[in-house]
């Protein structure tokens, strides 16, 4: 029963990681850019959300309604101001640029919000449980998982069926040919990054509800998102979701073995996947 409980907790944790991983999978799949400040952006959104909630007495839904559009805008701005200048075959400039941005953001947040941990007041939702088949599970983690599934499904649908999704996939396959077909790569990239960071708006709310956030937390979130994407297989939205599940479950079981072992268990599973199946569980060899 203990192990089943660990499994369930792991899946719920995976739902949280999936919300980080989706945006990263999208950006890398389309532009082959990894945004090192990805984790810091979540923390920034979280802190902004918490400050607003405290200042204006907003509930989580209201904060969500503000953070998602804010995330969309931030992503769009990031692409236009920074990333469009470093898209290309050489990975070094985008890496260094987003790395510098990450350092700047972390310390800016430190300056503005200090190193204290904060969380979003949720009006009790953090402590509610729901009875599923005889097991009591926290309501919030279930919501997180459901939202993660919905986001993944929505993103996948968007890529497959909408005009924007097709343009994104075309630009990912061959950006010059995409331009020859009338696609403006820069505009498409800006929208892609906007979507990627918009999704982080959800992650920001949920992360600050379920636990505390502090300016230095971004690095850990980046690593989890990255591990999830690698485990699942690059270039696949559902792959990123499954990878998040695997990571969450690994950590859940690790926590159950020993509280100090949880995160390390995740890292080890990641390294094992890397050693044995580097293209990821769903990636093409």
């Amino acid at each position, binding site marked *: 029963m203990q192990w089943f409980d660990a499994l369930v907790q792991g899946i719920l944790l995976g739902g949280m990681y999936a919300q980080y991983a989706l945006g990263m999978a999208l950006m890398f799949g389309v532009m082959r850019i*990894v945004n090192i400040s990805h984790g810091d952006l979540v923390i920034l959104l979280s802190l902004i959300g918490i400050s607003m909630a405290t200042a204006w007495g907003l509930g989580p839904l209201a904060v969500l309604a503000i953070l998602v559009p804010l995330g969309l805008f931030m992503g769009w701005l990031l692409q236009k101001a920074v990333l469009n200048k470093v898209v290309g075959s050489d990975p070094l400039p985008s890496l260094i640029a987003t790395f510098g941005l990450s350092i*700047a953001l972390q310390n800016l947040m430190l300056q503005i919000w200090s190193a204290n941990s904060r969380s979003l007041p949720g009006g009790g939702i953090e402590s509610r449980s729901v009875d599923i088949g005889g097991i009591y599970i926290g309501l919030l983690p279930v919501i997180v998982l459901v939202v993660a599934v919905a986001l993944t499904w929505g993103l996948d649908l968007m890529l497959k069926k909408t005009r924007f999704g097709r343009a994104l996939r075309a630009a990912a396959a061959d950006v010059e040919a995409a331009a020859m077909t009338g696609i403006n790569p820069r505009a498409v990239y800006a929208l892609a990054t906007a979507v990627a960071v918009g999704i982080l708006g959800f992650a920001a709310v949920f992360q600050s509800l379920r636990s505390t956030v502090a300016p230095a937390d971004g690095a850990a979130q980046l690593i989890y998102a990255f591990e999830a994407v690698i485990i699942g297989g690059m270039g696949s939205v559902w792959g990123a979701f499954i990878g998040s599940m695997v990571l969450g479950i690994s950590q859940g079981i690790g926590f159950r073995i020993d509280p100090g072992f949880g995160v390390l268990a995740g890292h080890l599973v990641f390294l094992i996947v890397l050693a044995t199946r580097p293209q990821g569980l769903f990636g093409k060899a």
Partner: protein
Amino acid sequence: MTAISDAATAIPAPAVTVRRQTNSGRIAMTLAIVALVAVAVMPWWASTGTIRMILELCCYIAVAQMWNLLAGYAGLVSVGQQAFMGAAGYALFVLAQTFGINPFLAVLLSLIVPAVLAVPLYFLLHRLDGPYFSIGTWVVAEVFRLVASNLPLVNSGAGMSLRVMSQYSAFERNVAMSLLCAFMLLVTLGGSYWLLRSRFGLALIAMRDNPVAAASQGVDVSRLRFLVYVAAAVGCGLAGAVYFMAQLRINPPSAFDPMWANVAIFIVMIGGIGSIEGVLIGSLIFFIADRWFGEYGATYFVVLGLMTLLVALYARTGIWGLLSRRFDAPWFPFRRFLVDPNR
């Protein structure tokens, strides 16, 4: 056919010599030797506090140059070199403190650890695409930190102290630190320069400019990358061992501090990637900025981060890159010039 062989004998091959050194190079070499000696004899002209400060600067220079070698020549952008620094640091403490080996010998022996670790790590990571390789190196550093936090051999999270050093006088310790510092500079900077001037250097520069073209000319790019990775691991290990020996204390968060990666990247990008001159310039700038503005804490790092971002966007070749476009006066020349003695 006769027309061709006639032509071949008609023009005599000119007697040329190959010149490697330049005037700027000679000046720089002289200054470098002077500086190296000055570092080695620090106990005779500097206070303990100054020695510590210069030692720290030399560690930054060493780590930055290793990062430069990795990113600038092998195209491997690592943000996890601190893994090797901490590994060698811990190895030093375990060898010297736990097993009672002479600390200075232990420094050299500790280098075996990063060297041995680098091999499987490279094979694990090198299949990862550019930016994913980078984060992979970070994960590795994190794994090291977590393992160290739970490993009784290194006293887990509580860390270790290098108490055996108390058997030496302060002066003796200073002499040892200064010599190790000079040795570290010699190995990392001097070693890099020697490497660039050797036949490996040609391969490295070719690899830097265009790996595909280099491979087509017979350069074994993957093997060279691997060798550079291991060399950089050992270089960082040496910096780590030296640094923590001076600190006299080590614990998981300080051993595997990502700060080293941040500083190395800043130094190399601002100074100029792919050149030793750039590392020196960048280190100097960082050192001055750190002394003057370090007290401003977080804001100072915001500026450092923004500067790194701006350099990556608008001035990828850094300060040395901009300078060398105007003036051809390298401090560490390795190009070959053909000189016709008859002119």
